[in-house]
């Protein structure tokens, strides 16, 4: 066996026991690893009767056959669970070093089930699994825990939750390597519900390669491809992801003040150009990454990773705030507390609108940078107004009788791109299996940047095919698991060649993307089984009914309904959004019905 380690580690925290068993290789061929393997395992392990915060839910950590091989960006891992935020299938993946080190422990997947009576942390070191008392760590923040447990980037890696996860905030992240986050959908709360503070990995096993000579050549060729692409060799390293701020504002698709506007007058002050000129200390990289998009930023108060575009937007334009140092500082605070920055920022924005309209009795107001850090702190500890915001915007807005003011899809806060000016992006949010998310597919390349080709962003007819291709491609890449930015210099099909060289399992042309389609349909089946229907494939009423009154997207609302019908048809689903038996048979999923 090559690429895969061939083993699953299954830990029950209720009994502090574990077992190992072989990876089902047919399952591995069909779902690869990462997100795909996680979804397939979750299908068997967690049914609709399970409360996401109960001991019966599981956390499934997966790597992939490319992880740790040294292939460019092969550092990532995925965590799969039933989301406490949305109730859907959830996978969140993260970069850094932990995923590579996890692979070196010799497992393809780690399943954590049950609940420890007392706080505990797990150490997986050179074949030994040890349960440690975490009473002294409970309450500590992420940076302190990471240091205390001996983080060493290339040798010993720490994954943990902060106070937000301990306090079961449904927007809590799982953090690794200090400042990397598997953030979306609340996996940190699931970890907290199990009284699990941290997982430390240290291993020596090396991934074996089926065809080392061919792999070496593909490694060389990929290096050349990434160096030749101005996106991966210049754009991302030089300005990071925040460079998108100005262009999204320029085209009138930068959600502003809880999506009340589509342009922010303070965009320039929180742009990538401003960050680079005034606050950038240096770049940094995840393991085996030649791109190096990570920013190390510094203000008078903090120095650390980030902020990324979405985090800068969430605490910036979405909250009507143009104070970049305050945004850098609240981003660092979220990392230390273990909170998802997108959901945290957008939930604060929702509270600001509720307060300004008199629905919520608080002094939160758009533009108040001084309110960011105290509010985030209160959210992580469920104190004062923070107790109201800790579970995301939909629960907050629903409690105060205005669910329509939550800018979320399936309960997950949407990212920066306003769907009124980006029709395909809106369809993508509405159909995303984990809720409003830009990482299940991203239409910005096609609708704005012309990557690989420009498609009219206001076009409705025919848009579903692009969205579906995007979603399937991302599901495949998430199952390898590598960084999606690699795909900006290297085509999807190329990864099938890499996979073949590493594993010896040959994926014919189109088969890797079909694997992504299989993963997407499995996730859809999971959500259908949880009771999600076509009525959940929607967007906030504001985006469907309230057109911007000025700017380049003036007069446009999301034309979701016709796109959705076309989407179901193109996917091979029935009009209720359920995959047909024919489609499932074609994907080898008929046995799941």
């Amino acid at each position, binding site marked *: 066996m090559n690429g895969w380690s061939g083993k699953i580690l299954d830990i029950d925290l209720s009994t502090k026991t574990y077992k190992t068993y072989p990876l089902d290789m047919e399952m591995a061929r069909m779902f690869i690893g990462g997100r795909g393997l996680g979804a397939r395992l979750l299908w068997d392990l967690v049914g609709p009767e399970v409360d996401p915060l109960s001991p019966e839910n599981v956390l499934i950590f997966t790597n992939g056959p490319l992880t740790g091989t040294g292939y460019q960006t092969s550092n990532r891992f995925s965590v799969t669970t039933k989301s406490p935020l949305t109730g859907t299938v959830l996978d969140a993946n993260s970069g850094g070093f932990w995923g590579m080190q996890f692979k070196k422990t010799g497992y393809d997947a780690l399943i954590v089930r049950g609940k420890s009576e007392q706080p505990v942390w797990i150490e997986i070191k050179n074949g030994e699994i040890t349960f440690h008392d975490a009473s002294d760590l409970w309450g500590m923040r992420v940076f302190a825990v990471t240091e205390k447990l001996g983080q060493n980037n290339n040798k010993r890696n720490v994954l943990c939750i902060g106070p937000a996860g301990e306090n079961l905030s449904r927007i809590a992240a799982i953090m690794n390597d200090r400042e990397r986050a598997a953030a979306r959908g609340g996996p940190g709360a699931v970890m907290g519900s199990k009284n699990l503070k941290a997982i430390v990995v240290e291993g020596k096993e090396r991934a074996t390669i089926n065809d080392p000579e061919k792999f070496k050549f593909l490694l060389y060729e990929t290096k050349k491809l990434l160096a030749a692409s*101005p996106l991966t060799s210049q*754009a991302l390293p030089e300005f990071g992801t925040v*460079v998108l701020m100005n262009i999204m504002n320029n085209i009138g698709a930068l959600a502003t003040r809880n999506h009340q506007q589509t342009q922010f007058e303070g965009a320039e002050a929180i742009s990538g150009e401003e960050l680079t000129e005034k606050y950038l200390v240096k770049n940094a990289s995840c393991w085996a990454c030649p791109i190096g998009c990570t920013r190390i930023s510094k203000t008078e108060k903090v120095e650390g990773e980030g902020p990324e575009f979405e985090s800068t937007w969430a605490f910036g334009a979405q909250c009507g705030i143009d104070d970049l140092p305050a945004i850098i500082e609240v981003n660092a605070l979220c990392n230390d507390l273990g909170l998802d920055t997108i959901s945290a920022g957008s939930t604060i924005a929702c509270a600001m609108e509720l307060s300004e309209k008199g629905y919520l009795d608080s002094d939160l107001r758009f533009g108040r940078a001084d309110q960011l850090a105290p509010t985030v702190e209160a959210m992580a500890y469920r104190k004062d107004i923070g107790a109201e915001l800790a579970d995301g915007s939909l629960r907050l807005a629903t409690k105060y009788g205005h669910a329509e003011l939550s800018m979320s899809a399936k309960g997950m806060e949407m990212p920066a791109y306003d769907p009124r000016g980006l029709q395909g992006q809106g369809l993508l949010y509405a159909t995303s299996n984990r809720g409003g998310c830009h990482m299940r597919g991203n239409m910005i390349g096609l609708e704005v940047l012309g990557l690989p080709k420009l498609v009219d962003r206001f076009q409705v007819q025919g848009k579903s095919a692009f969205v579906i291709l995007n979603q399937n491609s991302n599901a495949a890449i998430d199952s390898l698991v590598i960084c999606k930015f690699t795909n900006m210099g290297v085509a999807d099909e190329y990864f099938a060649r890499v996979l073949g060289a590493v594993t010896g399992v040959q994926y014919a042309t189109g088969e890797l993307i079909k694997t992504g389609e299989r993963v997407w349909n499995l996730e859809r089946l999971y959500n259908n089984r949880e009771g999600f229907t076509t009525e959940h494939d929607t967007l906030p009423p504001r985006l469907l009914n309230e057109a911007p009154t000025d700017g380049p997207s003036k007069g446009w609302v999301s034309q979701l309904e016709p796109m959705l019908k076309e989407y179901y048809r193109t996917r091979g689903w029935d009009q209720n959004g359920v995959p047909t038996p024919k489609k499932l048979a074609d994907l080898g999923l008929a046995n799941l019905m």
Partner: protein
Amino acid sequence: MALIKLFANLRKLAGTKELSVTEETVGATLSALVEQYPSIKDVILDGSELRPHIVITVNGHNVTDLNASVNEQDVVAIFPPIAGG
């Protein structure tokens, strides 16, 4: 006069964020721009053609046709290759 706005590394190369022009098409606008700031020519043009991944908008709408018209009061934004998520 139309206003040209530059972004990302184009600002550094040109030493300015924006400038005004009187040209009547996108292509003529670019020609005027690179004549004034030769350092950005190789970044945005390959001969007389736009290089891949260069994004140009006029009043916030993507433009790929260099013959597209530019009117007084228009804002022409030029972005070098950028990416993110």
